[in-house]
């Protein structure tokens, strides 16, 4: 076995396919960090992807997503399906560091080789959160996982994008978790394929279900397209069998009527767009040396010795620098 750091792309791919955990973990690190080796490896394995079922789970913090994921995973293990989980937590806006605690919630899965859990911070990710979670989900697919779940906190657009980038999106809410208005603001209502009202042991479940129904009524969605609303008590495992059943049924239905293929195509297009966006940005800022240009243009501002700078003017200058450079390259 070659030491991980010296492993070539093709060998690592083979080791991931063979189900080796350290290899799988390292491939994920490549993906997360935007290591160029990941793109090389990806070319070698993309044709093997697509077997796994991918779920996005999102919802407000504390709704019980992680607990629910653990329960679902235990259920799937009982059906002899293997599971991969990506748990995404916010990064501290102040220090760039992160404390990732979701694994603690999933303690019962820890020793089961049939379950692979990976924690991820929202930042420190190169080229956007959804780009990284897509890649990591692919690694789990390659690694032979039957069910791949990505958990994100439904607080911002990028997190909601992550949840959408799946075969099926679950939105988890809980009574007493603030208004459904909050969830609507976060854009959660649009992405749900299944609503889960968790903590059904708490007062206020019926009201929350009613609120959801009302919102769907108002939005005038045809009955057959309406996301089902299921209630669960994740801590006790109540409603998990029904939820897992609904997940399978929704997936089967979408596979049969072609919606699944359509969605995967759509996801892929969005993903390529993201990659291009990311590369472009990298091109502009790093490869063309424009970060330095920005620094020069604003030098002396902090110390108070520089002249005032027009934000629009400097931005235009940077862009025209870029255009010139690119023009030069295409001429050469």
């Amino acid at each position, binding site marked *: 076995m070659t030491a991980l750091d010296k492993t070539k792309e093709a060998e690592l791919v083979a080791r991931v396919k063979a189900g080796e955990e350290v290899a799988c973990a390292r491939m994920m690190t490549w993906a997360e960090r935007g290591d160029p080796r990941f793109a090389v490896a990806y070319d070698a394995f993309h044709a093997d992807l697509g077997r796994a079922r991918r779920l996005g789970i999102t919802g407000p913090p*504390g709704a019980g997503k992680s607990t629910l994921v653990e329960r679902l995973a235990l259920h799937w293990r009982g059906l002899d399906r293997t599971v991969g989980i990506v748990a995404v937590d916010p990064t501290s806006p102040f220090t760039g560091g992160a*404390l990732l*605690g*979701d694994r*603690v*919630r999933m*303690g019962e899965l820890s020793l089961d080789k049939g379950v692979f859990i990976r924690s991820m911070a929202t930042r420190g990710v190169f080229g956007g959160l959804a780009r990284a979670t897509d890649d990591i989900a692919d690694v789990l697919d390659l690694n032979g996982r039957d069910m791949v779940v990505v958990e994100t906190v439904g607080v911002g657009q990028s997190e909601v994008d992550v949840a959408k980038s799946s075969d099926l999106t679950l939105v988890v809410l809980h009574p007493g978790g603030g208004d459904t208005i909050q969830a609507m603001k976060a854009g959660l209502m649009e992405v749900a394929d299944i609503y889960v009202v968790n903590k059904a042991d708490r007062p206020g479940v019926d009201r929350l279900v009613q609120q959801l129904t009302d919102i769907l009524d108002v939005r005038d969605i045809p009955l057959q397209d309406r996301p089902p609303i299921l209630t669960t008590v994740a801590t006790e495992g109540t409603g998990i069998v029904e939820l897992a059943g609904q997940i399978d049924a929704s997936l089967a239905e979408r596979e049969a009527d072609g919606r699944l293929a359509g969605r995967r195509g759509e996801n892929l297009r969005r993903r390529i767009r993201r990659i291009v966006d990311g590369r472009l940005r990298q091109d502009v800022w790093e490869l063309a040396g424009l970060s330095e240009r920005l620094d020069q243009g604003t030098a002396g501002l902090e110390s108070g010795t520089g002249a005032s700078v027009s934000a629009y003017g400097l931005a235009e200058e940077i862009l025209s620098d870029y255009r010139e450079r690119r023009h030069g390259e295409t001429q050469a």
Partner: protein
Amino acid sequence: MSIMDGTATENSSFESWKKAYDSAAQRDVSFETVSSEPVEALRTADDIEGTDPDADIGLPGQFPYTRGPYASMYRTRLWTMRQFAGFGTAEDTNQRYKYLLEHGQTGLSVAFDLPTLMGYDCDHPRALGEVGKCGVAISSLADMETLFDGIPLKDVTTSMTINSPAAIIWAMYLVTAKKQGARLDELGGTTQNDILKEYIAQKEFIFPPAPSMKLVVDTIEFASKEVPKWHPVSFSGYHIREAGSTAAQELAFTLADAFAYTEACIERGLDVDTFAKRHSFFFNSHVDFFEEIAKFRAARRIYARRMRDKYGAKNPRSLMLRFHTQTAGCSLTAQQPLNNIVRTAWQALAGVLGGTQSLHTNSMDETLSLPTENAAKVALRTQQLIAHESGVANTIDPLAGSYFVEDLTNRMETAANEIFDQIDELGGVVEAIEKGWFQREIGKAAYHFQRELEAGRQTIVGVNKYVENSEDDTKIETLYIGPEAERQALARHKAVKAARDESAVAAALKRIRDDSRSGVNMMPAFMHASETYATLGEMVDVLREELGTYREPPSF
């Protein structure tokens, strides 16, 4: 008007003092307590203007008990000097008890090892390497019988530091005493049995909060009917403080826990005056001398008021908060360990001036290992010196009326009431635990203190000031618990299991399961099972299946 005039009248006015004070240089330190509470240079009568000498301070043995639960306090009886002990095998600990009793100690205290605290027998895989390390291993009644061999339980009081499996361990103790010929109603002692603070701070929990609370209420009910001299729960702030809380948090969280148990007992249908009179508390005595004294005094006052006004307690004994104190283990340093003797001495003094009913003084070597015999003796002597030489036990609540101490006491009460409101807003203690609120608050305080320390805004002598770099800084004799304890415990455990009547054990375990499902008081089933030598692990396993296990929410 200048302070330079120096006339008597002007100097006696507050303004001129203030001027003089402000014009004087001040040391470049932050004048704060160890809890990061600012402390003023001077307190005067103005600062306690709103304090009613009768209603708020009162007299010892009288409502609101600010000055002490008893009228005569230490003039009748000194506090109980209770040193925690327990390590290795039951035989070793039994020897230590006999030694301590011979040296004038008046109560026994049992520390259990971690497998016991977590409900595992000594032969469980998770017990590997931990048997006998931090206390004595009790896997079945046989170990309990060995532990108290030759010690008549009706003549001593025993304090047991046990929580999650407390009901079962207590059942074993009661059976041991009965086998010695004692009656249950003559047994005195305390089981810590405060599960709420486990979720909050010490984290040695097994079952989820709600069923755990039910077990605690079972022990309170059983004690009030069958073992009336026992203190079935010791509401503990000690561990909350050790986990890094401030003094006010320790005070408020502990009292909030006590009130939560009180409410649970009332819900069970118990009359508050039948059980509240056996309530006992366990506080930390930390380094900030006056802050601690104020905390103890405030605790009595808050408790008396709430028990009377909110829970309708009438019996004076239900209103008076009595407590055990332990000096702060977390304040001791591995560096220059002899300094720990001095720290412990004034912490103990704060406990005494705060009116404690019993006291444990830490040994100087506790950051390094379990106490050696010598270190344990010095710790006990520290209490004896305070009791018999310092003179502080002669006058009851000698600090009452001090502007500073009364003001601090008032502030403690205010801070605690604010925290009670926050807990109520969160939906009560159990809810706040499940939300990780307490854990987060304590974590923040601990992290804050550590950073203050590293920034030099808090001082620990020998750690960030007056540091000695010599190698043998930390070299004092320490106690080593070898693998021998584990081997002996395993051998006895095997022998016990080989000799017992398996069908009786199976029937007793089935009864535990049945009783757990039907919701009756579990104590009789635990005592019955103990008699058959069913093991701790076997009983807890049944409960794990019936009640579930708890994992704490990650909280930062």
